[in-house]
């Protein structure tokens, strides 16, 4: 997943990064095809160049040697709302058919079954980043037809599209999962199956999704991580395996 996410990033882009897999993906992209990627953390660190793998988006290693540190009012007003962010990464407990994300509650808001952390900066990243990439593992409970609570808006909310709702960014263009990649359909805004990992079938993906998944006429085949990508991820970027757990089948997350 980290390698697939990395390939979505273009050189010179400005990326609003979270900790964990998005951070790894960005660093992999910088080490390969996108050396001029600029990483911004909502904590206010811009152009970080951490000497260790950060364990929090406010890690001191993101500050030391960064290009700029600014207050959070600037992060949200001058960078995000200003339109400076090309790509935002989002994840969540639930992702639905239109890429709406729930990180607030499972169940009713007033009396939740599970209280999740809430929006953080996700709601505004979903509104303002020029495009967002959702990263989440497939599981029918995590991919319901409709999320219990829309924290971060996707391609369509209550039948109305992003333009109509006045959102500047293009919203979630892809959902990168552990079995395949969904893409937002240009006309309906629905997340449709676009590409599969090697050895995975469309039915495998459907099993992890709670709505009848539309499939692109021609499904792409996702190239497995190259030897270089694997080496960088395992030996350089996350040598202690903090975020990457090697699975029995040899796949790296």
């Amino acid at each position, binding site marked *: 997943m980290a390698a697939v996410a990395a390939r979505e990033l273009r050189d010179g882009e400005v990326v609003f990064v979270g900790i964990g897999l998005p951070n790894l993906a960005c660093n992999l992209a910088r080490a390969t095809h996108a050396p001029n990627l600029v990483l911004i953390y909502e904590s206010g660190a811009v152009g970080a160049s951490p000497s260790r793998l950060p364990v929090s988006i406010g890690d001191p290693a993101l500050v030391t040697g960064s290009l700029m540190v600014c207050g*959070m009012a600037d992060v949200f007003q001058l960078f995000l709302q200003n339109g400076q962010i090309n790509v935002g990464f989002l994840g969540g407990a639930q992702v639905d058919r239109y890429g709406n994300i729930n990180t607030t509650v499972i169940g009713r808001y007033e009396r939740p079954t599970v209280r999740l952390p809430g929006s953080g*900066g996700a709601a*505004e990243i979903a509104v303002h980043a020029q495009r967002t990439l959702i990263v989440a593992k497939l599981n029918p409970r995590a991919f319901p037809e409709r999320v219990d609570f829309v924290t971060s808006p996707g391609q369509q909310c209550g039948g109305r599209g992003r333009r109509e709702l006045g959102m500047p960014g293009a919203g979630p263009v892809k959902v990168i999962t552990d079995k395949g990649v969904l893409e937002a359909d240009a006309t309906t805004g629905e997340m449709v199956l676009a590409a599969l990992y090697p050895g995975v079938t469309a039915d495998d993906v459907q099993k992890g999704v709670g709505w009848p998944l539309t499939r692109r006429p021609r499904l792409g085949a996702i190239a497995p991580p190259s030897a270089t990508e694997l080496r960088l991820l395992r030996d350089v970027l996350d040598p202690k395996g903090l975020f990457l757990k090697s699975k029995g089948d040899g796949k790296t997350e």
Partner: protein
Amino acid sequence: MASGKVMAMRDAVARFVHDGDTVVIEGFTHLICFAAGHEIIRQRRRDLTLARLTPDLIYDQMIAAGCARKLVFSWAGNPGVGSLHAFRRALEGKSAGGGGLEIEEYSHFGMVARFSAGAARLPFWPLRNYMGTDLPTANPRIRSVTCPYTGEVLATVPALNPGVTIVHAQRADVAGNTQMWGLLGVQKEAAFASARVIVVVEELVEEDVIRSDPNRTVIPGMIVSAVVVEPWGAHPSYAQGYYDRDNDFYVAWEGVSRDPDRLARYLEEFVYGVPDRAGYMNKQPHLAARLKAKARLSQGVNYGF
């Protein structure tokens, strides 16, 4: 001492934090004043409205200790680790009291905007946000305003003006002129929005140190009620240039926080069981060696003319 503002944490909390207050202990990962939170617990403040973007472990502890009536926030988790379980128990109705915590919830941008409005003494702040989300349904305090030039409808949040804001910083002088570097979060806005401000510092410095680099001053003495000198007061969060973030503590909190009995024992031992931050550090003699910052000095710049 040229100023009556310098005082012990005990006195600062006794004088400036009252039952029923809206209390803000800000800091985004960096410079979160755990020492002040612990003192508030020790002094058994009640019915507080705790406001903060990321409640973090310190508000989890204050909720567990029964200080909080209400929480105003935008992300309530243990960053990079998991949940704040005292907070979750209060909301999921599994606590003994049956979920007595009121909440008022925004996104980070919304909370930042609330502090910005409070600091500028405007009643609201406009932002382009919240279209398509359920947040305004959950929180009717998120409203809207129509632009008098373009006719666009923009979201608004109301000003947040705390009774007291507690800011941890690297250094200040006796008058409360306070310098910070590294991540600055929303501390400046929260302090200016507040009726009272307690500044807690790693080091009390001469006024000359402040005057040698005035662009680093984030909070001016005129808005500061008390200056508390409390080295290591931000542990397990960190102070850039002084000590690192104690990630082990954050990881361990998942287990402590999940079990109400363990959490109670933690508070007994490390909060009620010590008189102050020095006592807290004395109980953990290896902390300082493990977390003390290495030197990575910036060069000075010329302020001459």
